[in-house]
């Protein structure tokens, strides 16, 4: 018998943690999602059914799913758009203080409490906040209930933008500045070099940044909870009410499994497709 490499032993605690804290629970959740719901009882009924999943195809659910996705797509696009120049400046600015300041800002936001940031957004962008007039430029009045959508989007953008920016910092660092110098020596302007040399090379990282942002948005729970005012309901919120308010575990489990599949499809499936398309 071949001796296991020493490294394999180091995987043991991690493997156990994955198995017991993720694999096992998700398997139990899957089993739970296939049980029939007995109204008024905490225990699921006997037998197996797909009814909990069929229920999710009702127009009301599809509407919430679409709402979640729509906001997620907008926020992800904006976060790549905002993160790219920021990340580029953090890597290529000629002034070391600018580079360091921007990196410190991004790392600081990454480790800063999201609750505190969402609260700050409520204070700054809410109807009494000093930034409300800018929020009104979306065409939705800050006093109207629909403004919650704008606030949730702003909250999610504040959450995803630093993450995407740091991903792009990694990508820009990996590109040699020689490429831009070469373009410049061939007569390209600075903007030209960035647009025609740097951006195409960074495109794969921008696509994965977009997808990670999308996955972060659609699985986010706290932004719609704190800023949604009950008007913006994400699928994550639905799952929580299933559990907390109605006690319908099988249906909550079915929503959970669907969300899990969706999130993995975005991160791994779409990413693989994008890689192939960019090649």
């Amino acid at each position, binding site marked *: 018998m071949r001796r296991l490499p020493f490294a394999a032993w180091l995987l043991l*605690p991690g493997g156990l943690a994955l198995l017991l804290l993720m694999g096992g629970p998700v398997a139990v959740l899957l089993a739970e999602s296939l049980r029939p719901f007995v109204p008024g009882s905490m225990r699921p009924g006997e037998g197996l059914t797909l009814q909990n999943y069929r229920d999710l195809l009702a127009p009301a659910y599809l509407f919430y799913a679409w709402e979640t996705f729509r906001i997620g797509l907008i926020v992800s696009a904006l976060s790549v758009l905002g993160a790219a120049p920021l990340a580029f400046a953090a890597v290529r600015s000629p002034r070391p203080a600018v580079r360091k300041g921007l990196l410190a800002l991004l790392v600081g936001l990454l480790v800063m409490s999201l609750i505190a940031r969402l609260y700050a957004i409520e204070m700054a962008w809410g109807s009494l906040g000093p930034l409300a007039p800018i929020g009104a430029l979306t065409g939705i009045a800050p006093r109207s209930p629909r403004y919650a959508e704008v606030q949730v989007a702003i909250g999610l953008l504040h959450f995803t933008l630093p993450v995407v920016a740091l991903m792009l910092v990694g990508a820009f660092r990996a590109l040699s500045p020689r490429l831009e110098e070469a373009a410049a020596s061939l007569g390209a302007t600075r903007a030209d070099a960035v647009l025609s040399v740097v951006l195409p090379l960074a495109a794969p990282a921008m696509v994965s940044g977009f997808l*990670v942002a999308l996955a972060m948005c659609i699985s986010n729970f706290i932004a719609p909870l704190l800023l949604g005012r009950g008007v913006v309901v994400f699928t994550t919120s639905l799952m929580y009410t299933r559990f907390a308010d109605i006690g319908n575990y099988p249906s909550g489990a079915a929503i959970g499994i669907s969300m899990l599949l969706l999130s993995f499809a975005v*991160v791994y499936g779409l990413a693989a497709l994008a890689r192939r398309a960019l090649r």
Partner: protein
Amino acid sequence: MMRWLDLPLRLLARAGVLVTVLFLLVPLVVACVLSFDDRSFLGPFPPREWSLRWYRGFLDNPAYMDGFWMSVQVALAAGAAATIIGTLAALAVSDPRLPGRAVWEALFLSPKFVPTVVIGFSLLVFTARIGIFDPFTRLVLGHTIITLPFTMRAVLASLIGLRRSHMEAAMSLGATEARALWDVAVPAARSGIVAGAAMAFVLSFDEVAVSLFLSDAFTQTLPIALVAEMRANLNLTIAAVSTVFLAATLLLVLLLDRLIGIERLAGDVGARG
């Protein structure tokens, strides 16, 4: 491209950077200023009178203080567990002789893409099934699995520069593999271990979704208490808490910059996906 477009485009990029930085910073400044507001209600910005009443309100509220200590304990326990497990896993995955390295790496990163509500809900059902009902244990377990990808990733990123030949040199001088890892690889991974541990502590300290499912009425973390307060009545106590969080974040970033340097840190925590 037209040469005359160069300047406008560069100005546009600069404006983009400026707008993004303002977008990220202004809300934090607003909350910070409001936390010193003397008015007892939420009024228009900026405040006219100043006081520390919201800070006293926070310190005098036992729900917040209990939650704070609970969060510290959970974050320390889960952060330590995730750092140790994640470091071991990263050391294993960085070994070129390990079969299926890419698969293992993807597996260890995967909890990051499981929505936290799903982790919370499934762990609730699972721990009930296997007979774990103690909320503290449940919280630590839940927080360990959600922070594990971050510690693993940070350590792995910091190990990229480690040369296999250094390990082999140590072993050719008679070190066992464990000894070589401890003396060569672990010191090389120091920045990633520190960055990962900091990330794990912070993420656990701020976690809401998992904690909502796994805590009970007597075991509340600080975020749970804050979220309950924010949903019940929006007042400025939370502005004071946010300002404290902001100050703590600044200190943490300064400390991490001292320990490992911000450039390296950005590489360790930034590498994702």
